[in-house]
């Protein structure tokens, strides 16, 4: 597998070119238009909030971006490359990592194992290396273990000493943390967070957002797109928001700007 060096600040950033550009992105499921000619720019280093009522196309945007669904039309450019029609594997290697709306950790596996799933591109995958060269494997394992421990420590120091425990026994907030660690371990350029607050209490959500901001401080201005229903979260951590309704962008701006927008109010409250 390719061992790309981490590149958080790219050459394009200096020129002010967006990290991700979607143009005319369209995804249809039968008669339902989940994404309708969506144009979206994402600047390097920003935290973008993606909001909108249920079924407005937020998660579909993530799924199309990460290659789970192929778009019916439009293009996605990421970091100067055309990502349109890439497989999930290629998108991951290009430097985009994500979390899922419903936590998709592998519950019987240990915390360490779950994080290592996200580290796939940095682990040597050859049969000979893994099965016969146990000494070299052990070195890689020990190095990876320290990396994982250091990453988890940023979120929750006590959890860093429990990496060999199965994920199944952890409370929701720890599972979310592990999921974010799994996405971050490969040092992506872009992190997609799909409703990180789902299934958590208000306090836990606040705590998780602290963690995310903290980690972002440590990772040299990682670019993040966050889908979220909790407006408090959006207001607190995003630089900019994009509002979707029926797969189209209906508003864009800072949180205070979009919360004054009449079309946004209509979309959420259904006012004629």
């Amino acid at each position, binding site marked *: 597998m390719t061992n790309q060096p981490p590149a958080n600040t790219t050459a394009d950033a200096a020129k002010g070119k967006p990290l991700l550009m979607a143009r005319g992105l369209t995804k249809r499921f039968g008669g339902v238009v989940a994404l309708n000619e969506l144009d979206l720019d994402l600047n390097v280093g920003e935290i973008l909030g993606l909001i909108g009522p249920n079924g407005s196309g937020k998660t579909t945007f993530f799924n199309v971006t990460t290659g*789970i669904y192929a778009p019916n039309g439009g293009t996605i450019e990421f970091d100067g490359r055309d990502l349109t029609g890439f497989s999930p594997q290629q998108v991951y290697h290009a430097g985009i990592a994500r979390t899922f709306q419903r936590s998709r950790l592998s519950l019987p596996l240990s915390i360490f194992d779950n994080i290592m799933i996200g580290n796939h591109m940095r682990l040597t*995958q050859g049969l000979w290396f893994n099965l016969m060269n146990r000494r070299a494997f052990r070195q890689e394992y020990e190095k990876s273990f320290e990396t994982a421990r250091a990453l988890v420590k940023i979120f929750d120091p006590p959890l860093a000493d429990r990496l060999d425990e199965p994920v199944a026994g952890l409370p929701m907030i720890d599972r979310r943390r592990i999921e974010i660690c799994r996405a971050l371990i490969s040092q992506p350029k872009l992190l997609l967070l799909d409703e990180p607050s789902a299934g958590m209490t208000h306090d836990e959500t606040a705590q998780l957002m602290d963690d995310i901001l903290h980690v972002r401080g440590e990772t040299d201005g990682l670019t993040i797109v966050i889908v979220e229903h909790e407006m408090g979260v959006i207001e607190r951590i995003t630089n900019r928001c994009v509002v979707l309704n029926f797969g189209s962008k209906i508003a864009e701006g800072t949180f205070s700007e979009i919360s004054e927008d009449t079309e946004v109010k209509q979309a959420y409250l259904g006012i004629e």
Partner: protein
Amino acid sequence: MQDELKPTGKPLWQALIGAVLTTVYLILLLKVEEQSEVIGLLAGGAVLLLLLTKTGHLGGIGNTLHSREGALNLLVILGTLAIVGFFYEDHFTLLLIATVMLYVLATLGLNLQFGFAGVLNFAGASFFGIGAYTAAVLGAHTAVPSLLIILVGGVMAALIGCVLLLPVLRTRGHYAAVVTIAFALLFKTFLEVNDILGGPQGLQVPSMKVFGWDFNNNVALGDSVELSFYFSYIIVILLVLIAAFVLVRRVERSWIGLNLDALRLDETAASCFGLNIVRWKVTAFLLGNFLIGIAGALYGMVGGFVAPTSFTFADSLILVSIILLGGIGNVWGLIVAAAIVVIVPEKLQAIQEYRFLLFGGLVMMMLLFRPEGLLPRSVRRYFPGGAER
């Protein structure tokens, strides 16, 4: 094993006593012929196991051995040698033990596919048969050395298994299982109508010969002791089994094992982290069939005879039920389950006829009340004992 009482680790000498008792018990079970004695032994063993579990002894010993894997490996090998040594001239019992070991070898392969990668394979006996028929044909018509034939048996099983790759990769879950069932049925019919492969009568398999030594001769030690010819076969099988066991263990304790688990548990999430689903499914499927084929080739040589009736869909089901019974993904569970599934019906004549019914019932009970199997798989440890923590 973690019931009400949280078992604490027991000293190693208790594990040692446990191993000696288990060995003696197995020798007794293999020795007795009288049906009432067999039933008594089985019932007694079950009650004793239950008692030891309730008092936490079994769990404690399990924990001790879990953390001292070298000791466990050694005890199992020594125990096996002791049992084989005890029955050194008893053809029938040694053949039974060899069969258990070959079932363990085959289910190790199946475990790679089903237990790790989640690829259902209901044609295990077919790949076993491919190995056995390879041994028969190559042994009879070529001068290929026996040890090489065993390897070729594995390679043939893996190669012919490629026929199934496309449908297995394109379908998921139950649909993939149906494809393998179809293969199992086709395979048996193919053997029955194929005259070159002996048709329904099957073929003779030439004995194993290593460096000019024919394995079908008994081994004389001095003047008074003569070892059964199965004895030499068992030593070879044991060596192959140890190698396969180490291989499967290493697969489990590497990034490859992690990849297989990841794709079994959540293909979509695994794809989003760069995992090449096709590559790892193919790896598990081919490697698994390779091991099953090797087991089949050895089986052919030990039995001296292959016929289509030995490789039916029902036999495939037995292999799968060993995995379900032992604990999906746990390599130790396979040994326990294979021993139960092979030895019990052989000793207990009364249930011979009904064994499929009983296995079916047993598997259903397991899935209902203890779906993780007799010995559930534990969290992966890459370097047990020695890893820095």
